[in-house]
């Protein structure tokens, strides 16, 4: 019943691939489907209308190229327009000339402000900054407690104001004092977590405006749940009128929402989306790159993010060694085990898989639990070095021993070995995709491949990625 935007677009585009050229008629039909797909993805009604009109204009106005199919041509136009709507380029946080840089976080209830605040703190710590958090959500039960617990996970201090064991309900005071505290203790960033508030709650909107004028933040971030529907435009507008924020944070993108709200907000308030939050673990935060988001929406995968994250964990030498192993089919269970350890450091697995072009759609329904690795690890650790290097010697007796040693069943061991073999096959195919000697995938090459296959989008029309 529910289809993702990318699937819908793929479907919509498929209906014109195979037809000779783009014309008024086939574009009109496709546009209706695209519009409907956008609406199903929660893109605002008006935004969806504008978007399809713009694509339609471009498509019918543009010269028909004989070398590509209409599907490919339209894919390019849709992608360009999506990127344009989402805001073209990545924009960074504005730092203060003189520390501390003050960042104010605001949004509706339940949008994920507190979790994001902790993630942002971790992000800054990683970059060598020393943040201080201000617990200015003085209303929600245990909100201060929650922030303190999360902050302690990343060893960042929290400033809160309590008198006689109860929280003083003065958010402005918390914010002001936190900034002073940061100056005194030489913390270079202050992140102010505020209470969730309805945009029509005048008193609460006034409070956040008061915080703004009291501390004059360098950066105000509006946090919004990526599952938000049509109302996203209203809340984004109201908060913007009150705060004139600098950027938007999109949370809960690890679900299966296609995040139509991103399109709506970006086009309605004309503020950049600066971060994407993708899970409950504190490192599940990525900068927001509109071009990558557009690719992701279209099922083109988020290759660049994937490569970047991979590079944080791999050095070039390791990567080269691995590539050689994959090519020469030397990849054994020990390598597999080492791989797992590295992948685990890279972040939530589902995110990583979702970033691989062509894989995104196929893994969305798949349960990719990071803990699932534990069993595999246990089984590999129950093998002798010889067995790990030569899985083919794993006979019944050995498998029984491994099952016993790892607390698994023999059939689990069998399955794992089968999966390993399948994976090896797949890796061999994939290795044809990787840039030689670079240890990473090359986006341009991938795009070329997709284009050269003669079939439009991956999974959409025959060509696409090999064997995925």
């Amino acid at each position, binding site marked *: 019943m529910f289809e993702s935007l990318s699937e819908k677009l793929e479907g919509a585009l498929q209906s014109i691939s195979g037809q000779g050229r783009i014309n008024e008629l086939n574009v009109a039909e496709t546009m209706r489907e695209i519009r409907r797909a956008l609406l199903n993805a929660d893109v605002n009604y008006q935004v969806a209308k504008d978007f399809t009109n713009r694509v339609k204009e471009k498509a019918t106005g543009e010269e028909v190229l004989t070398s590509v199919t209409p599907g490919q041509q339209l894919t390019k136009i849709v992608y360009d327009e999506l990127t344009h709507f989402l805001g073209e380029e990545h924009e960074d946080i504005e730092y203060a000339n003189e520390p501390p840089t003050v960042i104010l976080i605001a949004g509706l209830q339940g949008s994920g402000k507190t979790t994001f605040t902790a993630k942002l703190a971790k992000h800054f710590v990683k970059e060598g900054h020393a943040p201080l958090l201000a617990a200015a959500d003085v209303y929600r039960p245990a909100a201060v407690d929650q922030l303190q617990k999360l902050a302690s996970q990343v060893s960042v201090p929290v400033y809160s104001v309590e008198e006689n064991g109860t929280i003083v309900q003065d958010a402005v005071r918390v914010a002001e004092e936190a900034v002073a505290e940061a100056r005194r203790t030489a913390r270079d960033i202050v992140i102010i977590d505020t209470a969730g508030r309805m945009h029509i709650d005048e008193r609460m909107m006034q409070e956040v405006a008061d915080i703004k004028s009291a501390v004059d933040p360098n950066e105000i971030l509006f946090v919004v749940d990526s599952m938000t529907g049509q*109302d996203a435009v209203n809340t984004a507008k109201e908060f913007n009128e009150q705060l004139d924020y600098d950027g938007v944070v999109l949370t809960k993108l690890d679900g299966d929402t296609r995040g*139509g709200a991103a399109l709506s907000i970006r086009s309605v308030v004309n503020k950049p989306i600066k971060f994407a939050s993708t899970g409950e673990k504190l490192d599940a935060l990525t900068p927001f790159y509109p071009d990558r988001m557009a690719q992701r929406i279209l099922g083109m995968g988020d290759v660049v993010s994937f490569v970047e994250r991979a590079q944080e964990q791999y050095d070039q030498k390791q990567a080269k060694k691995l590539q050689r192993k994959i090519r020469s089919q030397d990849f054994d269970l020990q390598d597999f085990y080492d791989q797992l350890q590295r992948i685990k450091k890279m972040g939530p697995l589902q995110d990583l898989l979702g970033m691989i072009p062509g894989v995104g759609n196929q893994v969305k329904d798949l349960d990719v639990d990071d803990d699932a690795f534990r069993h595999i690890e246990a089984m590999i650790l129950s093998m002798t070095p010889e067995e790990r290097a030569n899985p083919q010697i794993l006979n019944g007796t050995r498998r029984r021993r491994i099952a016993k040693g790892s607390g698994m069943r023999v059939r689990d061991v069998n399955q794992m070995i089968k999966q390993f073999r399948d994976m090896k096959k797949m890796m061999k195919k994939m290795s044809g995709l990787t840039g030689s000697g670079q240890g990473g995938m090359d986006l341009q090459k991938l795009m070329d491949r997709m284009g050269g296959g003669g079939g439009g989008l991956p999974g959409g029309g025959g060509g696409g990625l090999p064997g995925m």
Partner: protein
Amino acid sequence: MGIFDRFTRTNDEQEQKKLEEGLEKTRTSFFGKLDRLVRGKDNVDAEVLDELEEVLVTSDVGVDTTLDIIQHVEERVAQDQYVSTQELNRLIRDEIAKLMLEDAPERPADFDAPLPDKPYVIMVVGVNGVGKTTTIGKMAYRYKQAGKKVVLGAADTFRAAAIEQLDIWAERAGVPVVKQKHGADPAAVAFDAVESAESQGADVVIIDTAGRLHTKGGLMEELAKIKRVMGKKVTAAPHEVLLVLDASTGQNAIRQAEEFTNSVDVTGLALTKLDGTAKGGVVIGVSHEFQVPVKYIGVGEDLDDLQVFDRKGFVEAMFEGVER
């Protein structure tokens, strides 16, 4: 007006007023707009239906449900030949009311209705940030007000300070909480809560669970386990599995309902945050598709900002501004 009498039966005027306030935005933007676009015309033309589509879609009703409603409206209009504003209002109201499921008598939503089991076990589920804990706090308060003995189970052992948050709500409502420490096995907490409720002779036990995205298979399985474990203590428990939906959520709510139904068989819905400008129109499709009634609506952050949902009353209230 018999239907309306039924709606106000259990609630006082103040409550009705709060509901109306909460729905005000829905009413003015949804049906107020409809009123404007039909006023002055004595039949429904294509333009009107197009605009009706816009009104429904912008209320998060969703394309499929919107097309359903429009098709039915079109069919009835074709039949009747002539449709006035009033008739159209009634027609659409009928169509929407028809789509939403009626409350099941074996799972009463009214806080003072007699409960079919003792303890009556309610498990509350939903994605992150929809307002589960807040809803539970309000429900506990309302049950307590109705003279029932309530026990809460803090089975959200995952999120930082979730137990503390439930504790504070319990204190406000004046009910006990069964809890363990952060990180404990949520199924064990749920079991303990049901057991404790049984031994104390409590009427209702409400189990809070950690918010989880419906796409996380492992976490959904955990939820199914929490549910199973309670059934081992009290037959047929939980008697109610309440899925909390945020009114501002768009079409993803349908996916949420689908996945939560698959793993824990949702029996009722609570729609929160209706005090903003979000219309919550997606519940119409959810109620219809998964055949579950909407039981409660949340209209604010205070203890008494929870309303028992009444399907007909809801639709009546939505239309009030238009009928004048």
